[in-house]
């Protein structure tokens, strides 16, 4: 699940101009992780060339920002889009270690990605509010994001 989220973010950050605008305020090399308190599983991403790229959580370097779930069950609620990240914060399931200003930008990127790649009825459950976006724009962006994801999958499978 973490792998999928990070690859969707990677693809969305390369395609969607709203996400790229949010990222433009963060320094190159900025990194964040989303992890469970027990240590695994985790996703890690770094800003590189104006977009986010997935990096190995085991790289050892401390991320600029960390989102930490208390338990893997709490992470599953959010990452399976059953619960929004604000609701996870409100329910004390998720904590932030790092600057809130950066966290807010990353949260907006995550929200935007979810709004683009999820069917509206699922996204409405995962977001505090569903953004104004036309169906044609959503479908076009989602197709490009999933296209990039498929390419990533082929790159990952050894020939």
């Amino acid at each position, binding site marked *: 699940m973490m792998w999928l989220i990070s690859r969707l973010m990677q693809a969305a950050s390369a395609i969607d101009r709203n996400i790229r605008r949010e990222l433009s305020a963060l320094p190159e090399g900025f990194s964040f992780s989303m992890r469970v308190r027990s240590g695994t599983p985790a996703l890690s991403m770094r800003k590189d060339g104006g977009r986010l790229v997935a990096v190995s959580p085991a790289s050892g370097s401390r991320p600029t920002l960390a989102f930490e779930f208390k338990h893997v069950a709490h992470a599953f*609620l959010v990452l399976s889009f*059953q*619960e929004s*990240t*604000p*609701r996870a*914060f*409100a*329910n*004390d*399931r998720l*904590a*932030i*270690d*790092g600057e*809130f*200003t950066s*966290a*807010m*930008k990353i*949260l*907006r990127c995550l929200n935007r990605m979810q709004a683009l790649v999820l069917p509206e009825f699922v996204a409405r459950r995962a*977001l*505090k*509010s569903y953004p104004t976006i036309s169906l044609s724009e959503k479908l076009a962006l989602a197709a490009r994001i999933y296209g990039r994801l498929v390419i990533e999958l082929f790159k990952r499978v050894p020939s």
Partner: protein
Amino acid sequence: MSKNYFEFSSPVKMVSGFRALEHIAFELETRGARCPMIVSDKGVVGAGLTDVVVEAVTAGGGQIGPLFDDVPPDSSIEAVEAGAGIYLQSGCDALIAVGGGSVMDTAKAINIMATEGGGDPRRFAGYNNLKHRLKPFIAIPTTAGTGSEVTAVSVIKDAAAGAKTFFYSQFLLPDVAVLDPRMTLKLPPMITAATAMDALTHAVEAYTCLAKNPLSDAYAEAATRRVAKWLVPVLENPGDEAGRLALAEAAAMAGIAFSNSPVGLVHALAHTVGAMYGVHHGAANSIFLPAVLRFNMPACREELAELLLYLAGPDVYAATPADQRAEESVSRIEALKESAHKHCGLPRTLSETGKVPREALPEVAARSLDDGTMVMNPVDVTYDDALAVLEKAWD
């Protein structure tokens, strides 16, 4: 099955009321403390408030250690290091903070260093980076608004880094909060009004934002009732000890409420105009509260309607049609703002502060979106939303 869940914590012992300060000696003794250091600032010391505390403690058989009164208005890492140095050199074994939010925050950070034996306080910055209990700590607020005497947060200005260092840990909570009307009796009317509206904002946002829960609601309701009932009488008669105490209790209860159900958009905007233009935090909260509540109303109409009982009393609540109670609650808050303006000139709008140029509103809106309190607002806020609220609060 419902996935509802909440956490609530409020371990601070409240010592509140007539001659409350005289209980401090007992509270220190029962915690094995013999030499508490007082942390304060020069304004509080100059007003003679630390003298009142020292007299109350020593008359009860207690002892007092050194007084550290070099706390600047926004606190600072240097003040924390200096205070911790004095504490460690003097062989103190407890802390008493006498002051407002900055003094409280500084004392909390000094307590970290006092317990850890000095060094750089920044290594304990962040979320839950303390692993054991700190020294006995008694908090005596001299304003009735921030609620710092019951919060687990300390924010310290780090001039070298050009940032504010944030500490959060349950271990930062004071052991005892002492609310004595003598401590707030001489507050100027403007500060009285601004801090009371700050407390009201804490209560109302705790009641309407995402993390609200039955226990934070109970504290928010009680705090709201006290501010609504006592703010105007205290402004009319600043020597009203019962009213002063009620406002101090309201601030503490609102502090407990928002510690367990964090605040939202009002605070995001207030933090931003405070950081950019130095608008007093309580005054800014007061300015933004009605406009934000109207914006949030679609998501919290029921909660706002319930608040009318605490803002206006049972007769008004019963006489107001159910579908009009939410709007009436906001009108009552606006009426409080008007009264405060009439009595002491508390600004009602951003333009009345004389500090924020209208052309700055787009930047204020943009920066507000990055404030961490936005997460808990019941409605998602876009740049256009934030700008629209700012325009409404302008005049």
